[in-house]
């Protein structure tokens, strides 16, 4: 597993546990009984330290957790939670965007839904072809096509968002990145089916919001959502992004799920396993699955474009 900087105490304990286990396995001479006891003690202690560390994460640490390469990604949620999934690709205008996975299927085998997820990728090849999870206009236009399809056939829309932002590149600008984002938001305010968004990791600015104009916007406990990355904010407002200014910017931006819930800018949180989503992928996915299913039942027959527009018109107002 990849350990974050602040997780160093956990890493050290893991190393000691591994060393002890190896020694035990080799049958090295020594007080074997004591070693076994020590392994058990360290394992308990490690869990406690993880709990403590994760209970008091500051904003900058949350950003690291939200970006953790081992967190479950859109593909993981979809393959675990959607039965009979049929992927739907391409915008019918220009091309396919590998940073977006969209399709229809049965959520937890029960609810017919349309799903749109951003994809960061896990291998270097995947990350490169998916632009590290930064969609291009064709990605947003693919999403819009699926939103339209969902609307026509009465399927609720689930979006799973984990992106540093929309791709900033020459072709993306030429093909109308700004227009694609605006149109995607507009489309989500035009559909008459329930829309649920889960921000599973990074909610990067307009590139995330384009897919997050939902009846219910939920965030995983250690996910973040911001108008700009703390690095970008520090570079502009503090004139320099460094070890001191980046955490200051992260904290000032109020980008944690807890802050945003308090400010009334999101609708709720989904608890992560102790030590973060990357420590227990399947438990995280199950919690997301169950929460969405419950929300789908609650929203049944209750969501309309009028309500969604009203919600966003009133958001953060006064």
């Amino acid at each position, binding site marked *: 597993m990849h350990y974050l900087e602040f997780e160093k105490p956990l890493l050290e304990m893991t190393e000691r546990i591994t060393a002890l286990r190896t020694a035990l396995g080799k049958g090295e001479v020594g007080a074997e009984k004591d070693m076994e006891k020590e392994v058990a003690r360290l394992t308990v202690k490690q869990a406690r330290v993880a709990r403590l560390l994760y209970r008091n994460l500051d904003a900058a640490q949350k950003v690291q957790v939200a970006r953790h390469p081992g967190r479950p990604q859109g593909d993981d949620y979809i393959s675990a939670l959607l039965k009979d999934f049929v992927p739907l690709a391409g915008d019918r205008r220009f091309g396919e965007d590998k940073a977006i996975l969209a399709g229809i299927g049965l959520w937890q085998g029960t609810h017919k839904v349309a799903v749109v997820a951003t994809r960061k990728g896990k291998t270097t090849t995947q990350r490169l072809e998916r632009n590290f999870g930064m969609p291009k206009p064709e990605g947003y236009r693919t999403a819009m096509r699926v939103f339209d399809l969902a609307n026509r056939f009465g399927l609720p829309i689930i979006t799973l968002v984990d992106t540093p932002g*929309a791709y*900033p*590149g*020459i072709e*993306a*600008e*030429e*093909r*109308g*990145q*700004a*227009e694609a*984002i*605006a*149109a995607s*938001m*507009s489309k989500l*305010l*035009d559909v008459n089916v329930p829309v649920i968004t889960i921000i599973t990791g990074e909610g990067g*600015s*307009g590139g995330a*919001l*384009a897919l997050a*104009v939902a009846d219910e916007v939920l965030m995983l406990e250690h996910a973040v*959502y*911001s*108008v*700009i990355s703390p690095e970008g*904010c520090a570079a*502009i*407002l*503090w*004139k320099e992004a460094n070890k001191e200014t980046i955490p*200051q*910017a992260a904290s*000032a*931006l*109020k*980008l944690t799920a807890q802050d*945003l819930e308090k*400010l009334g*800018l999101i609708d709720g949180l989904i608890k992560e396993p102790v030590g973060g989503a990357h420590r227990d992928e399947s438990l995280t996915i199950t919690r997301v699955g169950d929460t969405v299913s419950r929300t789908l039942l609650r929203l049944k027959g209750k969501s309309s*474009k009028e309500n*969604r*527009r*009203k919600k*966003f*018109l009133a*958001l*953060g*107002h*006064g």
Partner: protein
Amino acid sequence: MSWLTNFSKPKISTRKKRGVSASVWAKCPACGDLIYDQDLVPNLYVCGACGHHLRWPLKERLAAWFDKGLYTEIPVPHMPDDPLQFKDRKRYKDRLKEARKATGREDAFVVASGEVGGNPCVVVALDFDFMAGSMSRAVGEAVVVAAQAAQAAKTPLLAVTASGGARMQESVFSLMQMARTTAALADLREAGVPYIVMLADPTTGGVTASFAMLGDVTLAEPGALIGFAGPRVIAQTIGGTLPEGFQRAEYLKEHGMVDAVVARGAQKTTIARLISLLG
């Protein structure tokens, strides 16, 4: 003109008459030619030598577009300042204070109603001089108020954009204005009220990626920088140089992203025509 009576008294814009002694020369940033300060207003801030469009002060723009320079400001309910008590090297509250003092505006917008070529319309215009026209809650509110006023009066809405993007000091509150303005425009569209956008220099970030790109008709000023990401960010990401004319109004037109690039001298006529044809 009953739609006018709801609003406060019309203001006649005053064009300062400067004595010769007070006049100065401005330098065209494109060709370097010297422009006599007094010529800026009558020339609509366009360089006589090369046609370069300098940034047009909002007051002058509104005076030139509205018939006889006459318009009524539509009040926008005040949003509480500084929702996050944001402080970087400076307190956001102080930045606001300075911007207010420098511009005489509450925030980076004007909402006004009046007639263009005899056609009533509502205008929401961003002021780049106020914290780079960045999208605050107040700016979002202005767009919403303008859209709702246009909808209520059934008169076309015209937006003039000039913005560096998000008001970072308002973080996700700023971000959510993209969705808020989009929601207001969705209602306007359904009500069948035309919405025309004039993209001025520069229009980038969250403003471009929301109400600036949702027009029924999208116009742009010659040479205006228009984009989602800023050119520096893009150059950094790709690690190379950008094509000639990249993200300029003409480039966007070539790529199918705007309907027309309209020079200042033709703007009023074009807008009047559009309003009367669509309205």
